[in-house]
């Protein structure tokens, strides 16, 4: 009886790898993407028993011989040098804690702040609830990160509005030399800065901000539709 108890599932998923993985096909976790060797594992792909497995729900991308998955939904994971928008969530005498939309708050040490602050006066420089444009300086093994405001254009954000879209959609806005982004900027007459954590700073007059926001909202919806259509 022991031997019979081994569950044998032949081609259970109905997703045979016989034809090999197809570019742009939508994969789900556990999908067999073929033998390791023919392809290498990129983002979202796992090697198990010499077989490539999808670990995410998303669009399969084949680049040369690397298989990777562009997920349909993501949460932000910080990487060094990412431009991000953060909110000050708390502070001590010499450190600010910044919500950058990642699982963990980032740290902004006083020395990397926007201007000289004396010990104990962090709140006068950046108060809780304020927004900043900053850069990820360092990400630790345990996913804690340090952000900096030393750098060109990095600053406190005190006008306009901040909207959010899924972080992986940001890349789409800047495709073809910022085509979409330029369109929105022209139509709304707003300054728009997109950041890696999916937050978008829109600054201009109120009617412009509304226009830009609606545009972005539609885009984020239509992107999903496009991905879906790509599967047909």
């Amino acid at each position: 009886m022991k031997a019979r108890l081994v569950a044998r599932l032949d081609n259970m998923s109905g997703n045979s790898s016989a034809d090999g993985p197809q570019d742009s096909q939508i994969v789900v976790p556990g999908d067999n993407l073929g033998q390791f060797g023919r392809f290498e594992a990129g983002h979202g792909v796992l090697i198990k028993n010499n077989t490539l497995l999808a670990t995410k729900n998303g669009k399969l991308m084949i680049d040369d011989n690397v298989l990777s998955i562009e997920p349909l939904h993501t949460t932000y994971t910080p990487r060094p040098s990412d431009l991000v928008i953060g909110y000050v969530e708390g502070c001590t005498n010499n450190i600010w804690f910044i919500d950058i939309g990642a699982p963990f708050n980032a740290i902004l040490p006083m020395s990397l702040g926007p201007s000289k602050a004396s010990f104990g006066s962090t709140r006068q420089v950046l108060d809780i609830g304020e927004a900043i444009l900053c850069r990820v300086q360092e990400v630790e093994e345990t996913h804690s990160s340090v952000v900096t405001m030393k750098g060109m254009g990095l600053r406190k954000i005190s006008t306009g509005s901040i909207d959010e879209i899924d972080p992986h959609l940001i890349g789409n806005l800047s495709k073809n030399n910022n085509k979409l982004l330029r369109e929105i900027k022209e139509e709304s007459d707003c300054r728009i800065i997109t950041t890696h954590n999916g937050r978008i700073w829109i600054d201009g007059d109120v009617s412009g901000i509304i226009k830009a926001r609606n545009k972005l909202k539609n885009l984020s919806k239509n992107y999903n539709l496009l991905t879906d259509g790509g599967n047909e």
Partner: protein
Amino acid sequence: MTIPMVSKLLRNHLRELALNDQRIDGRGRWEGRDVSLEVDILDRAEGSAKVTMGDTIVYAGVKFQLMTPYPDRPNEGGLMCGAEVRPVAGRNWEAGPPSAESIELGRVVDRGIRESGCIDVNSLCIIPGEKAWQVILDLFAISDDGNLFDAFALAAIAALKTAIVPCEKFEVGEDYPLSVSKTPIMCSYHKVGNRFVYDANAQEELGGDERIHITLGDDNHVHSLQKGLKGIFSADEFAEIMERAKIKSSELRKLVDSVLGD
């Protein structure tokens, strides 16, 4: 419920929008989000409804229990209404015993229904002093994108109106529909950017101030009021939203009637 950090930029932006008579999602000041109401959707409940208002989604379910009437009111059954916002509904809602916010939600909805007299508690009595029905209305949020109050109240009255008293199950006669004579409707107004708006979404709630809930009956009689959160308002402001609530509640009452087909 954990109160998240409030962005100063969001508050400023909401104020600026208000000055320009605009809202963050493009709605008019007194305009609600799209509302959908479905009834009789849960097989195990004796009456049920699901309300979707934008991205806010709630369910209401009615169950019945037999109770012994209270000695001072031997001819009356009971109505119990509770709201539960479990952590499924948003990242700020936590597990554990009901939060103050959940309890407030349940009690405000309860008062609107109870005080409207839409359920005749005497009709719930089976044997005076011995046996009566207790109607239990449970409100359950699935997705909180603001204004759970109105969504709960709408789901509550619709669920009651579809409820069947399960006499056969309890062996006390034949099943019959619960009699609900009126349609109390709650309308909630939030102070956002220094002015009241109807049906605030989560962003407006977060960046706004006080809120006022008004429950009106069929004849525009007021059945419950609640002012919540920090904030000060004037009598004129209140008079204005009261007029708006009369218009809005009759619209929503029509929706309930059309869904229930009477």
